[in-house]
């Protein structure tokens, strides 16, 4: 079999994946997405690969690449549907709610006035997020009406059209940590606590990673969340609500795991490659 990793840059994750393919004696090429020129009438050339592992940093590039490849019948990790469902936070929330997977209350509004009303209905504090984005960027805790008015005006005046879609979420009073769980092929293989004094706990923002035991409860929740967005390989962000228990906050489709292999002792890149090999042979 032959695999290919499409990526924007070879970050530690991609290097670990290249090494995991090599360890299994599976030939694996690396394609830089900056050089891709898709000829929509000659996509069959991509069928030389038994599986494509998409690792683009850019959400847009990932979406276009996977849509083209999936329509051409090329097997990919992940699929276009998974990226579409996870890349847009509102679609993720909607799929979780529709499938009765516990998740914080979420509202969507399209104008400053309706967003202000939605925030008032949600109550303070609440969280205002961009519908697309990662590493906790532009995620804002709205503590009072003054903050709401300021943030909404800022996004209205300075933001592009995407910033005029207001995703408003209930603020969860969690301990000074959240959980990131890695789900591969329907099974939660590892999880970390991300601990930070800041309410945003992303490791890219300084959150410290330690091992989180994968309990049957955590596995059931994360597996259900992964299924709701289309399966494959995803990282599920989980909040611990003091009253309602575990809630899925977000699901990531091209996860980073450089800080998670060591604390969990789980070979996450190995599990991803095993899944890709299995998919190639299916």
């Amino acid at each position, binding site marked *: 079999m032959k695999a290919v990793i499409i*990526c*924007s*840059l*070879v*970050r*530690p994750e*991609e*290097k670990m994946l*290249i*090494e995991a393919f090599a360890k299994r004696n599976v030939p694996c090429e*690396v394609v*830089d997405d*900056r050089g891709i020129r898709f000829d929509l009438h000659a996509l069959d050339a991509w069928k030389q690969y038994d599986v494509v592992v998409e690792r683009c*940093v*850019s*959400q*847009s590039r990932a979406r276009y690449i996977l849509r083209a490849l999936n329509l051409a019948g090329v097997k990919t990790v992940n699929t276009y549907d998974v990226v579409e469902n996870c*890349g847009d936070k509102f679609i993720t929330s909607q799929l979780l709610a529709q499938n009765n997977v516990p998740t914080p209350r979420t509202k969507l509004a399209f104008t400053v006035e309706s967003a202000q009303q939605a925030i008032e209905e949600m109550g303070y504090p609440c969280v205002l997020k961009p519908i*697309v*984005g*990662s*590493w906790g960027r532009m995620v804002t805790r709205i503590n009072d009406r003054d903050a709401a008015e300021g943030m909404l005006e800022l996004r209205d005046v300075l933001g592009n059209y995407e910033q005029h879609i207001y995703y408003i979420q209930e603020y969860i009073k969690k301990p000074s940590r959240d959980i990131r769980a890695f789900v591969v092929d329907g099974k939660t293989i590892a999880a970390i606590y991300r601990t930070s004094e800041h309410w945003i706990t*992303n490791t*890219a923002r300084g959150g410290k990673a330690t091992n989180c035991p994968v309990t049957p409860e955590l596995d059931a929740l994360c597996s259900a969340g992964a299924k709701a967005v289309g399966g494959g390989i995803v*990282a599920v962000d989980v909040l611990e609500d003091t009253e309602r228990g575990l809630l899925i906050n977000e699901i*990531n489709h*091209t*996860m*980073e795991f450089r800080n998670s292999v060591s604390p969990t002792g789980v070979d996450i890149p190995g599990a991803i490659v095993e899944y890709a090999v299995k998919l190639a042979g299916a």
Partner: protein
Amino acid sequence: MSQATAECPECGGSITFKSAPVLHELVRCPDCGGELEVVDLANLTLALAPTEEEDWGE
């Protein structure tokens, strides 16, 4: 085998690779903290990595 090293194009610092470098690999200069990309393997060369774009994510 000796570890590969390359020069930072920003500050001239030396970057040592713990394992064999890969084309387009992202590395950080220990001296200036700059994010760098491996752009040539034959004559191990680094360039400034592309800056973050609007839709770059995790």
